């Protein structure tokens, strides 16, 4: 199986490669449109800032490449946010694959809930979907983010932090996870395994 990891100015892509290696799959980190459109799976990792990431994608025409992808596609963390319609992070228009908006967490008034949302939190309200098949009992994923996607069409699971937000998304051949599955122990590994096992299109 050929897995393309979209190369852009995002941090820590290496850990996604290692997580795939542990599942016996070698991924190629690439910004070559040809390689991305002919891979069996495409993963859009992320960690970083929305406006500079979008600018980087546009300069290389990767925004169009992502919109044109036909095979199973997985956005992770900032990858999820960039697939939404708009991000409050520096008021950035995003790719518009999903109708969700990306907003900044507002710390709770009592100071109990801080921003960024860092750590292990549970996924809830799971919708039946091949990505969520046969999950282990553990329901926690590792999160590090200051912005979240609102709830809406395509929300497959929610997480609660200050309010409910979209944890996992799906539309057509696009899936996305706000947490870091590559760093989320058994549950994260199962989500990646399920993504790799999706039927090719």
């Amino acid at each position, binding site marked *: 199986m050929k897995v393309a990891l979209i190369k852009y100015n995002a*941090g*820590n892509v*290496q850990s996604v490669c*290692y997580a795939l290696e*542990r599942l016996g799959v070698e991924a190629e980190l690439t910004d070559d449109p040809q390689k991305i459109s002919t891979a069996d799976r495409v993963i859009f990792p992320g960690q*970083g800032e929305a406006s500079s990431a979008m600018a980087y994608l546009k300069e290389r025409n990767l925004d169009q490449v992502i919109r044109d992808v036909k095979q199973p596609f997985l956005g992770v963390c900032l990858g999820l946010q960039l697939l939404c319609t708009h991000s409050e992070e520096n008021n950035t228009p995003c790719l518009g694959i999903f109708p969700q908006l990306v907003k900044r967490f507002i710390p709770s008034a009592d*100071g109990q809930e801080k921003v960024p949302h860092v*750590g292990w939190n549970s996924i809830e309200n799971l919708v039946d979907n091949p990505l969520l098949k046969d999950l282990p009992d553990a329901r926690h994923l*590792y999160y590090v983010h200051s912005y979240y996607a609102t709830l809406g069409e395509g929300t497959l699971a929610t997480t609660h932090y200050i309010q409910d937000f979209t944890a996992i998304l799906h539309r057509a051949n696009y899936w996305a996870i706000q947490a870091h599955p590559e*760093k989320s122990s058994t549950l994260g590994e199962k989500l990646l395994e399920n993504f790799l096992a999706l039927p090719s299109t």
Partner: protein
Amino acid sequence: MLTKRIIPCLDIKDGRTVKGVNFVELRDAGDPVALAKLYSEQGADELVFLDITATVDKRKTLVDLVTQVAKEVRIPFTVGGGIASIQDVYALLAAGADKISINSAAVKTPQLIDELAKEFGSQCVVVAIDSRQMDGVDWVHTHGGRTATTLQSKAWAKELADRGAGEILLTSMDHDGTKAGFAMELTAAISGALPIPVIASGGAGSMLHFKEVFTSGKADAALAASIFHFKEIGIPELKMYLDEEGVVVRK
């Protein structure tokens, strides 16, 4: 719900795990990669590696170690020790570290925190504060606790948050290695006043100490070393205890 994090810390010297008492006497506690994997499998929420011999010629050893850990463990980890530049951070993140921790360099050049936060995002910038109390005032120390500064810990913590630090790793040097409990007042004062997470460190000796630091200490995460390395407290039993005591943890 967001869970409280349990973080074993591996102090690394020449590629081995060591743990000292009050930062001085060092004992060998084993192979860091094997320990990291064990803790990951036992349910540790994160790991911290602190290279306490981080000299320039040893830097490559650390990068190799980070690569090995990143391949083997499925939880996030932070690497610290001797990081002084954007280039140092690039090398460690590229090898697979999720976050880096800086201390002395941040005191020497506070602007570095702003630069790192801008370059890599706040989420991967942990700033460590080694704090020691003298005449009732908490002072920041650097260089593995050997050098006192004129910065007060609480004010410095506030400045770190303002400059874009993503988390604060707060070690009480007075409590470190004593197993007498975390520095509750200091931790609560800093964690309660800041909009970013605080990892409490130094003094863990019993399961009760963890419960205390998560409740009245207001910590978001708690870090410990020797009690885990020398199997005095197991991570699964600690989590079970915290859960029974009403502290939300990942099981």
